[in-house]
């Protein structure tokens, strides 16, 4: 069915549609976070002005640097598994340019395995190149609670998805069995109708002593 609506009212369907909902939640949360940061900064600026001081963002940080955040998903290393890679020997650090292996676009470096790649993503060099501070904002108890509520909602909906899926499969099985039963019945009936007397083909009886020569 092409006009099927996803379980969350997203059109298009496909088995990734529910993920998009989460992404949207994530984006909304990010937007809120940006808003909050903006307010925080305005407040700090205002307070500094009240005291007759000039407001500075945290020292030694470029003005557009953002806080470092946890990865929101697993690194995609699965897609690399089983691929043969030609990597220069002794490649302890990344090799300049895009090559076979794990490529970091921001730094234009290629790494021979996922360990070196993730080590690079965590490195000072990469953080600076991508405008991150390498510092993470502490979370308060309200943020923790909000996060847990979100995770709970997410889990509940995923469970529901599985149940719906299971129900649908059971229903399909039932329908298939019903169809097969119907088909057998139809064939039986047809066979019977084909004989003149309507009694169907009967066993041929041999009317002698029962010895077949």
């Amino acid at each position, binding site marked *: 069915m092409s006009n099927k609506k996803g379980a969350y009212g997203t059109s298009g369907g496909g088995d990734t549609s529910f993920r998009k909902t989460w992404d949207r939640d994530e984006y909304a949360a990010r937007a809120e976070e940006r808003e909050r940061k903006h307010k925080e900064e305005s407040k700090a600026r205002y307070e500094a002005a009240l005291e007759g001081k000039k407001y500075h963002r*945290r020292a030694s940080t470029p003005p557009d640097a953002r*806080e*470092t*955040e*946890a*990865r929101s998903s*697993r*690194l995609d290393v699965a897609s690399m598994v089983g691929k043969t890679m030609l990597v220069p020997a002794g490649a302890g650090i990344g090799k300049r340019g895009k090559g076979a292996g794990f490529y970091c676009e921001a730094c234009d470096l290629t790494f021979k395995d*996922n*360990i070196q790649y*993730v*080590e690079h*993503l*965590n490195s000072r060099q990469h*953080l600076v190149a991508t405008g991150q*501070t*390498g*510092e*993470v*904002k*502490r*979370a*308060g*108890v309200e*943020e*923790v*609670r*909000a*996060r*847990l*509520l979100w*995770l*709970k*909602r997410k*889990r509940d909906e995923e469970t529901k998805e599985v149940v719906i899926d299971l129900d649908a499969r059971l229903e399909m099985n039932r329908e298939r069995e019903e169809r097969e039963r119907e088909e057998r019945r139809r064939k039986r009936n047809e066979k019977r109708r084909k004989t003149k007397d309507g009694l169907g083909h009967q066993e041929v009886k041999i009317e002698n002593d029962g010895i077949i020569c």
Partner: protein
Amino acid sequence: MAKGDAFHKADASALLDDRGYSGALIRGQNPALLFEKGVRERITDSYYWKEQCFGLNAATLCDRAVELKFIGGTTGIMGKPTPFLCLAFKLLQLVPEKEILLEYLNFSAHSPEDVDTDNAGEFKYLRALAAFYIRLAWEPVDIYKTLEPLLLDRRKLKRRTKDGFTLTYVDQFVDDLLTKDRVCATSLWKMPPRSLLEDLDLLEPRESLLQEEIEALDEEGDDDVQIVGSEGDD
């Protein structure tokens, strides 16, 4: 507010800096030292640590903790740390405030008035993780008071052993934390026994069913026995 209060490092570089460490202390020392050196090194060398623990704060750590499938220390001949142990180490880096640990431990999506022992701590592996951290990082009286209510939690937990899996329960795991010296590849610092804290009047005797029965008997007896001078004793 000092810079260190609002932010922390994405990795463990500050935590592992023996001389330069300036973060929160647990019982007077760098929290990292609660794990043995070898275990610490295997954690920070592990792929899970590098990929999944980098940049976590107390809120995003929940994303990982609710995905946990088992508890445990280290596995195999290489002593590979479990995700559970890695996240516990992350908590030692973050040293979250008490209310956060209590939220991990007793989180319920129900409104506060509907929370009871049956629906508190909905994410059981998060609950186990918090209990493990609390046993390592808190003071004895708080440990007993906070963890003992979990002895009513009979939910199953999968536990990774050196070479396989075993089944345990939340209450069993908490009991281990309160009574054993070694849990999940970690030596637990020696805690004063409950009886000592009771003698010092730091803890009320633990109420059990038996205790309630004894009290019921005492109350029945009150009609017959006159206790003389009970009012002016203290």
